[in-house]
């Protein structure tokens, strides 16, 4: 039943893609059929995943596949279901959203048929990745996903920045894939590539396999410093696709990492440390880089790096919990990390859709050119605000629950067996401090983003002329915003869902936790939800009381108090760059802001310019130099193809002699 549903889902995607690709000449049909097939493809998969989580238990099916050592093995267990649900729901919602978002392109006479074809392939690829039970099938899904998302990024390829982004994305994703290929080749040494038959060769150092998995899947997930493609590619894609890529596609990296770490066996402590360190680094670097941006979508992309960092902190604590023998830390760490996977999918896709709506209506992604949109786009503004609060981990929204669990994992490390396991408490401290710093900075970043874009007065005519987006774009955002709140309030219901998933992961690592104590820890979720509800209720009562008081009073409207200045103008508002400047300045070692400033000259300076941008430090200082060094080296190597026939003949002779000397 469940495998059949999954197969139906995947086949729907796979079959509709070529059909859509052929509709290039018939854009009307494509723009209807595209979202319809995407949603239709998602539904059976969602049903299957929900059934699995609802207790139908793991199910799998195998069919033979004619490609050597391939097998059409798909399966759904709790872990797959947990990843498949956000993948499919976000894909479906983003499809509906993209229908409206692409109307603009259609009105310019561009065919969206290829877009929808790639979109279906992307969704199908992601689903395949989460349900494949054969390494070759997994790779197929993985590569289809990468290729389809690359082609989607290239949708606006007339823009040189988009082409650059696509190129960086492709390079990064390929380097990741190369590592995964290596990993699978090692694990599949015995011949079969079925997941349950994969194993490390005897005496092969597991550490190398771990590093391959970490780099391979971490590139997709976006751990610092493997993240450089992310802030390039996500903003470049059409916003619906950004929502899918940032919201769920990068999670396949997390999924793959978890799935294959389980195959690698009992983790030594240093794996956990690596993940924890990567998590804290990604979190802090991600959020700081986001703070320095004034491109809204780029900012959101950096936040994906940050949130992947938070997830990695959770998983790192989980691994450490296993290897240090602190079951509570293991349980809570995985629970928090996995819950955050779901939560981040919800609010990040929401935020990208919000940013996309803003972009669609104003034509700009530059925060400092916007402002005052909350009056003009009220629904978008409310949704974006919800997402902002959720991503900052604030109650009563969903982000709070997952961060709470990760904190609890850290506390478990700190306190439970404190005296005996100093490593556990160090990890706990690192996670606590890191999360706290990340949380504070995230709040700074999202007050900046939300405040500058939606509040105050419009800074440019683009923003002033904006209107609310239409229903097809609004509805998915409202659904996701509602989901943020609902999950946040559904703590009591979350525990029975997340518990079995974590149990299965721990079982995969060969670690069993007495379910009683561990599940008790999830009780904190219920309490947190109750507290969240209390905040809402209290706020409502206070507001009601305050409104009642004001009802009989005289209220009037006046201009904003300008401290005596009589004619304030919108351009005098605080800009996002100024807002973030103190923090960015403080962390100048991590984020390098470049300033371009023309000194005003002469007695009556006509015009002058000031602008800042913040390129990625890793790209500037790490990848660019390395790549150009390679390029120089290769250029030097061109000398051997100098055009002289004589020497070519000499090469032949030299090769002959070398081989004779070597082999005779």
């Amino acid at each position: 039943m469940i495998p059949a549903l999954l197969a139906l889902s995947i086949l729907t995607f796979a079959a509709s893609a070529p059909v859509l690709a052929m509709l290039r000449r018939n854009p009307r049909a494509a723009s209807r059929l595209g979202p319809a097939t995407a949603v239709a493809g998602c539904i059976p998969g969602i049903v299957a995943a929900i059934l699995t989580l609802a207790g139908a238990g793991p199910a799998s099916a195998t069919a033979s596949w004619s490609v050597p050592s391939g097998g059409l093995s798909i399966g759904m267990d709790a872990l797959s279901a947990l990843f498949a649900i956000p993948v499919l729901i976000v894909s479906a919602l983003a499809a509906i959203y993209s229908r409206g978002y692409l109307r603009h392109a259609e009105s310019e006479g561009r065919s969206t048929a290829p877009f929808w074809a790639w979109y279906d392939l992307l969704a199908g690829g992601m689903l395949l990745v989460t349900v494949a039970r054969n390494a070759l099938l997994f790779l197929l899904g993985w590569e289809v996903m990468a290729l389809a998302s690359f082609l989607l990024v290239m949708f606006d390829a007339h823009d040189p920045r988009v082409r650059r982004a696509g190129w960086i994305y492709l390079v990064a994703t390929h380097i990741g894939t190369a590592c995964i290929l290596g990993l699978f080749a090692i694990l599949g040494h015995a011949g079969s590539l079925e997941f349950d038959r994969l194993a490390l060769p005897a005496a092969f150092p597991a550490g190398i396999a771990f590093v391959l998995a970490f780099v391979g899947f971490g590139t997709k997930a976006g751990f610092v410093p493997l993240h450089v493609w992310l802030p390039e590619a996500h903003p470049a894609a059409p916003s619906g696709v950004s929502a899918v890529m940032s919201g769920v596609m990068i999670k396949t990296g997390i999924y793959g990492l978890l799935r294959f770490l389980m195959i690698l066996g009992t983790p030594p402590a240093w794996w956990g440390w690596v993940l924890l360190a990567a998590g804290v680094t990604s979190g802090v670097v991600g959020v700081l880089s986001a703070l320095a941006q004034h491109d809204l979508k780029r900012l959101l992309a950096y936040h994906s790096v940050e949130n992947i960092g938070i997830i990695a902190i959770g998983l790192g604590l989980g691994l450490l919990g296993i290897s240090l023998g602190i079951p509570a830390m293991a349980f809570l760490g995985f629970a928090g990390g996995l819950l955050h996977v779901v939560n981040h999918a919800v609010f990040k896709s929401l935020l990208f859709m919000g940013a996309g709506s803003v972009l669609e209506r104003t034509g700009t992604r530059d925060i400092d050119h916007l402002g005052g949109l909350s009056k003009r786009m009220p629904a978008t503004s409310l949704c974006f605000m919800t997402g902002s609060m959720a991503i900052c981990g604030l109650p009563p929204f969903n982000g709070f629950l997952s961060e709470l669990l990760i904190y609890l994992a850290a506390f478990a490390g700190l306190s439970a067996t404190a005296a005996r396991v100093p490593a556990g408490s160090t990890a706990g401290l690192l996670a606590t401090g890191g999360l706290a710093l990340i949380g504070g900075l995230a709040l700074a970043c999202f007050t900046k983003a939300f405040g500058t874009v939606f509040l105050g007065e419009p800074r440019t005519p683009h923003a002033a002329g904006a209107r609310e987006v239409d229903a097809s774009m609004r509805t998915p955002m409202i659904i996701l915003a509602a989901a943020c709140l609902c999950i946040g309030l559904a703590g009591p219901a979350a525990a029975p869902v997340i518990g079995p998933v974590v149990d299965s992961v721990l079982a995969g690592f060969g670690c069993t936790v007495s379910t009683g104590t561990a599940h008790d820890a999830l009780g904190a979720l219920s309490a947190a939800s109750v507290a969240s509800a209390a905040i809402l209720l209290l706020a409502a009562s206070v507001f009601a009381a305050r409104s009642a008081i004001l009802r009989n009073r005289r209220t009037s409207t006046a201009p904003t108090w300008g401290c005596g200045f009589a004619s304030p103008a919108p351009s005098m508002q605080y800009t996002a760059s100024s807002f973030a400047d103190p923090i960015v300045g403080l962390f100048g070692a991590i984020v390098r802001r470049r300033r371009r400033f023309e000194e005003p000259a002469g007695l009556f300076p006509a015009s002058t310019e000031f602008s800042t941008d913040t390129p990625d430090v890793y790209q500037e200082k790490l990848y660019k130099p390395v790549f150009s060094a390679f390029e120089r080296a290769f250029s030097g190597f061109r000398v051997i193809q100098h055009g002289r026939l004589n020497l070519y003949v000499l090469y032949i002779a030299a090769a002959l002699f070398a081989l004779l000397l070597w082999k005779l």
Partner: protein
Amino acid sequence: MTIHGLLSIIAGLLLAPLLQGIVNRTKAVFAGRRGAPLLQQYRDIARLLRKGAVFSGTTTWIFRLAPSITLACVLVALVVLAPAPVEQGWGFAGDALLLAYALGLARFLTVAAALDTGSSFEGMGASREVFYSALAEPALLVGIAVLARVSGGTSLASILQGAGVAGWVSAGTALALVGVSFFVVLLAENSRVPFDDPNTHLELTMVHEVMVLDSSGPDFALVTYGASLKLWVFSVLFASLAVSPLGLSGFALLGALTAAVLFTGVIVGTVESTMARSSLARAPLLLAGACALSILAFILASRFLS
């Protein structure tokens, strides 16, 4: 909930504006003035509640909604924290995070409301607010982590009660350092000197006050009361650590705690009177110092406990 817990909440709700009064009175004493009455804050709030309101034409529903939600958040924080030192089994695992993040929500809305006005001054205040708090949060949570390490608890109640006499005996230095760190956080979070000067009327130098320049009437009353409650909450955190070595319980503990909270007001007033407001560039240094103290405390605690 026992009577102790209930009383501690009620004390907070009722006495919070008094704490502000104590701070102001202390400062007046240091300055050689008579100063405003101790209950001035109550009068201010009552007066504001009776007034009408003026709203900026730029603002939206966010500006109107924010003070209410902010107050709700601080109230929840109070309910979570206030009974923790006196009530066994209060709260839940990780409720310290609820405290921190509820205040975070309050901050988000305050900042959003400030930005909603489109005023450059309020924008500047908001920028500083998030700047300070981004640094204060690690100091606070690492401090709590140290307490968790010492006490072995995960909820605020078990952390604050568990730090008790035994904790002071085994890791007293560490706890003292955490106390200092908490106090710095208190000053930063409540926009006190040396981070902010609540008395000044130069908009360019203010942090919290400048963010609420456009608030008026009942909304401003909510903001003012919320600020008092927030000061109370942080004072409870600091004071409970201070009274924990006394080994009291029941009403004695409640009384001592309340007294300590009010005395915290005196300390704050003293600090404000003897220190100058530090420059913007130095403020992060102080907070970083607080973080450093917390981490040092952690290292010490680990050494003491192992």
